[in-house]
């Protein structure tokens, strides 16, 4: 890339960054709405209340996300009507509609405020150059989340405690466990990145033949005479990370799925809820996969911009590995803070 085009690109990126940065670092995540609001106390059966404080300023992104949330909640209401139709009617048309709307709900739900996609994107940004892996990760996580919701409601049904409040309490426990595991995973990745394993191992595998020997050489230099890692070993390490990621993000069920499962159970058509849950998972997976592809592509772009300069390639690879791992730790800690500080998960 010529110096001129580099500068042009830099200018464009700077402009974009300036537009994004204020929003990115605003402390909205700690805003009072993260907690269960006061109004819940007025109606029995809902999670308890917390005092509200002054509202912070909101920006364009908040409004956009609010619109998405509105769309999602509207869909959730439609689902209730469809479940009713399914219960009373004889045809299977409502079932098809229910599954389709559940799928849409999943797509929108993942596009709205959610936690899984943030952690997954950070993970992919940190250490993945294969688009296929990104898609794999999104679908597996969504599947585990679906199972988590079904098992949770199934267990609640067995112990005959099906109140919304009880379900919310259990979801909160799973959330806390999930975020704890995410922090651990982030720390583990951070340590690996700082020791130079992840960034190197991955780039090595990706660029294959022509770079390989050179890279091995570099590697030896960088890490004070370490032995070049064999690709299969590096891949195995990544697979371990993949499984850890899927499980830590996936054990936290989607609240929308829990609600529809509880509701269909109450209506005596639990299986329809199970179907709806998987349809939601499919929708969620699609959105998260799209973001995952974006993360993987960004990573590849960054590495490619380093051009033939293998030192920079290595630096960027490792920089992303460190940054992504740090992001996972920070997000994990933030979510944990929010999950512990809200009286009960809002479902």
């Amino acid at each position, binding site marked *: 890339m010529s110096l001129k085009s580099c500068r042009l690109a830099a200018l464009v990126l700077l402009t974009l960054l300036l537009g994004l940065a204020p929003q990115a670092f605003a402390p909205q995540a700690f805003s009072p709405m993260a907690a269960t609001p*006061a109004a819940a106390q*007025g109606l029995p059966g809902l999670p308890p209340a917390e005092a509200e404080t002054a509202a912070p300023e909101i920006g364009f992104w908040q409004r956009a996300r609010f619109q998405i949330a509105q769309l999602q909640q509207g869909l959730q209401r439609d689902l209730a009507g469809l479940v009713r139709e399914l219960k009373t009617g004889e045809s299977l048309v409502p079932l098809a509609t229910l599954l389709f709307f559940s799928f849409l709900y999943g797509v929108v739900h993942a596009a709205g405020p959610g936690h899984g996609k943030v952690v997954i994107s950070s993970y992919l940004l940190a250490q993945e150059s294969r688009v296929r892996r990104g898609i794999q990760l999104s679908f597996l996580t969504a599947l585990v989340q679906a199972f988590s919701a079904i098992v949770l409601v199934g267990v609640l049904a067995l112990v005959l405690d099906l109140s919304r409040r009880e379900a919310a309490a259990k979801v909160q426990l799973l959330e806390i466990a999930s975020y704890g595991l995410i922090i651990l995973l982030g720390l583990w990745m951070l340590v690996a990145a700082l020791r130079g394993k992840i960034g190197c191992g991955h780039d090595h595998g990706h660029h294959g033949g022509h770079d390989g020997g050179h890279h091995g050489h570099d590697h030896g230099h960088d890490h004070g005479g370490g032995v070049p890692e064999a690709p299969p070993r590096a891949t195995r390490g990544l697979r371990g990370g993949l499984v850890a990621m899927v499980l830590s993000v996936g054990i936290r069920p989607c609240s929308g799925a829990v609600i529809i499962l509880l509701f269909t159970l109450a209506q005596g058509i639990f299986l329809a809820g199970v179907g709806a849950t998987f349809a939601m998972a499919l929708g969620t997976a699609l959105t998260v996969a799209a973001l995952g592809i974006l993360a993987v592509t960004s990573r590849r772009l960054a590495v490619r*911009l380093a051009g033939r300069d293998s030192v920079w390639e290595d630096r960027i690879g490792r920089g992303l590995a460190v940054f992504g791992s740090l992001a996972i730790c920070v997000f994990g800690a933030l979510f944990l803070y929010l999950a512990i500080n809200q009286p009960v998960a809002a479902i």
Partner: protein
Amino acid sequence: MPKPFDRRTALPRGLLLAFLLGLAAQLAPSGAARAHPHVWIDVSVELRFEDKVLQGLRVIWLFDEYYSAFAVQDFDANGNKQLDREELAVLENSHEGLKDYSYFTHLKVGDLLPEDLPVEVVENFVAEMNGDRLQYAFDVPLPEPLDPRKTTFGVGFYDETYYIDLNVGSPRRLRVSGNLPGGCKPALVEDALNPIYFGMVNPLYVQIGCDVS
């Protein structure tokens, strides 16, 4: 050691990383955007006039399917999967908790604003099932009877935290009983000047407009 620092390419690369960082941060959760509401209430309101003077309001809340189904589960003491009279009475007896929220009913009378006129007492509170949906009905008395030609009147139904979405929605759910003064007409009006929930939701008010000649 790796190659020395390359001044030509360091800036764009640094900026690229910063951009990716900013992009990643966009994905961060935001409290304000947590999916709300969690409860929906379809509100119907009846403006009760007597002798061309507004005496009070009759308000009906029809809860959404989810809240109704979960309320049935929570309060079904005898396990027959429906709420009987005694079980509904338990809900009725707990309604006073809503006075801390002004029953989500916000009055504007003349120059007085909702915070000056909290609804602390309602009358004839009845909980019942309307098909599969739970329904509350209650009367909201006014501080004093009001002539809409002399004093402006508005009533909004909303929860500032938007945990609950109360919605009159359609003019069909707005009724008048008794005789309205001539030239006066109720209407649903969005209050765009006092939005709730981080300025994202304009609450809906029922107002009585009169042609004063």
